[in-house]
């Protein structure tokens, strides 16, 4: 079975100093550490597991700058067979990303297309679902388990409250993958160094039939820090004192 996984290179922002760009439309990223999007890592691992079980090939695709090659190399070390990078246009949103991916994918034959549920930077969660629509394929989002039965995929979707929905889709189909679907395997430095010798194909948007001047339909107007407020109250004293204070607060809020 042939699987394609769409991946994204994202900056890690936990504990980092965040600065807003002069035009106010994005954060500064030069000093940040970049990595494979967490959800996409689970998707690539899942593709590798499906390949072990059912055979076939795994292709990873990303829309990104030259530096995205690092992320593709990691995916190759994780078991992907082919890697493709499409040079990202100067401005991107989920819809345009999905258009670019669909332009690449529609001319190739795949049984399954995997994406992560969302990306760690914008948390939009749109690309996978829009991609399915553009390709005219069935899809299931927030997938936590995949089983193949003949030419169908039987998957579990994560809903609220601990409930799963079981969905059967005829292949080819698009699935957006939730974290925790599998236990990611360690990718050794030796494996990454070996993967660096593998070929990564670069494509420009012109080469896949998209007009190079294409701009996204949505534009980020402003990025800003949430206002700092002072609504946290720290209770001090011995455990007994704190319990007393806490009980009073809860009673007051409950209105009794």
């Amino acid at each position: 079975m042939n699987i394609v996984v769409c991946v994204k290179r994202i900056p890690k922002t936990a504990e980092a100093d965040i600065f807003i760009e002069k035009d106010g439309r994005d954060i500064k990223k030069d000093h940040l550490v970049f990595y494979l999007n967490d959800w996409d890592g689970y998707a690539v691992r899942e593709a590798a597991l499906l390949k072990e079980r059912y055979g076939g090939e795994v292709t990873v695709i990303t829309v990104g700058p030259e530096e995205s090659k690092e992320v593709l190399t990691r995916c190759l070390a994780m078991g992907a067979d082919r890697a493709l990078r499409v040079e990202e246009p100067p401005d991107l949103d989920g819809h345009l990303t999905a258009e670019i991916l669909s332009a690449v994918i529609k001319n190739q034959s795949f049984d399954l297309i995997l994406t992560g549920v969302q990306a760690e930077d914008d948390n939009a969660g749109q690309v996978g679902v829009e991609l399915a629509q553009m390709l005219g394929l069935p899809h299931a989002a927030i997938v936590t388990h995949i089983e193949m039965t003949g030419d169908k995929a039987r998957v579990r979707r994560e809903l609220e409250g601990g409930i799963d929905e079981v969905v059967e889709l005829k292949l080819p189909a698009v699935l957006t993958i939730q974290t925790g679907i599998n236990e990611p395997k360690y990718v050794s430095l030796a494996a990454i160094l070996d993967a660096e010798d593998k070929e990564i194909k670069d494509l420009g948007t012109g080469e896949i039939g998209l007009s190079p001047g294409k701009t996204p339909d949505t534009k980020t107007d402003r990025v800003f820090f949430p206002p700092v407020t002072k609504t946290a109250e720290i209770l001090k004293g011995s455990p007994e004192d704190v319990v007393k204070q806490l009980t009073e607060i809860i009673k007051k809020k409950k209105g009794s």
Partner: protein
Amino acid sequence: MKTDPKTFVQDYHLNGCIQCGMCTGGCPVKFRSPLNMRRLVRETSSTANPSSLFKRPELWACTTCSTCSLRCPAGVKSVELIMGIRNFLANQGEVPSTIRDALENTLLQGNPWGRFRDRRADWAKDLGVKVLGEEASDTLLYVGCAPSYDPRVQNVSTALVKIFQKAELDFGILGKKESCCGNEIKRMGEQALFKKLSKDNTNLFKKSGIKRIITLSPHCFNAFKNEYPDLAIPVQHYTQVLADLIETGKIKMSKASDVPVTYQDPCFLGKQNLVFDEPRKILTSIPGLKFVEMERTRQRSLCCEGGGGRMWAEGSTEGTRNGEIRIKEALALGAKVMATSCPFCLLTLEDAAKISGMTDRIAVKDISELVAEALEA
């Protein structure tokens, strides 16, 4: 760099084994896990398919204290065998999940804790410490990952800075350019990552023009002194430096303590690198301090279980932790303070004191903290 388990017999001199059991007899996790070094050596040397032996969780219980290799009368490289097995497993991605995270974090952020690189020297920002690159010095204080990021161990880093400043010892730190020394990385099996860290660090040290390195942790001390192939810069553990500063009168301790103190010899400082006397010289120089020696002391010091990647390991051991055993031993001596000179001993022993509910009877402190307290006139 492919590891072939079929070469292990040769690489680690397994055929020299006389099955005496000195290794298992001295192993600090013998009673806490099924790990049996004597049997492992025998099995590895007599099987045609060594890799079948390696999918055992107890292989991750080893703390790499090295008691087995140090005591072997036949020159078998037992702890090196464990590290070779872990390397074989790591290259295939077959490591426990928390070890996986520690290794990936180190590649990404330069420390196994996964903390952001740029935050590494935040602990020092108000201490007036030189950062090499911005200012020059002949001496590097190599801080290490736990002393940079762990709040408890940051006290040790701060205490040491205070002492050096009081003694007018000129030094600098690398600041956020500092990356993991790789000692534990190698012990968790990532030889390729260790090679990369050692190469990058060696270049960084050479470029900064330093002539001397002082480490806070015995683990970093061990890596730089014994395992970096091209370093050629003298390395000392801070206890060696403090002992010298005390002897030459550069440190004056006037505040007396009158508390019985015992000392945990860390494996990577003591039994592996034979630095036993300097920590004791320091402690016995603190006015009023009553030094009491534990029974299992110096080479026989009981491993705290912090090494060998155990700081990032979960499970594969059971029963009472060695840390708790050591705290009980110290209490039986009447000690009120357990002194340490290693960040991992500090953390594991302090946790043990907390778990056994003994924090009102014994405090766990680093030697640098004790000296800094005695400095306050």
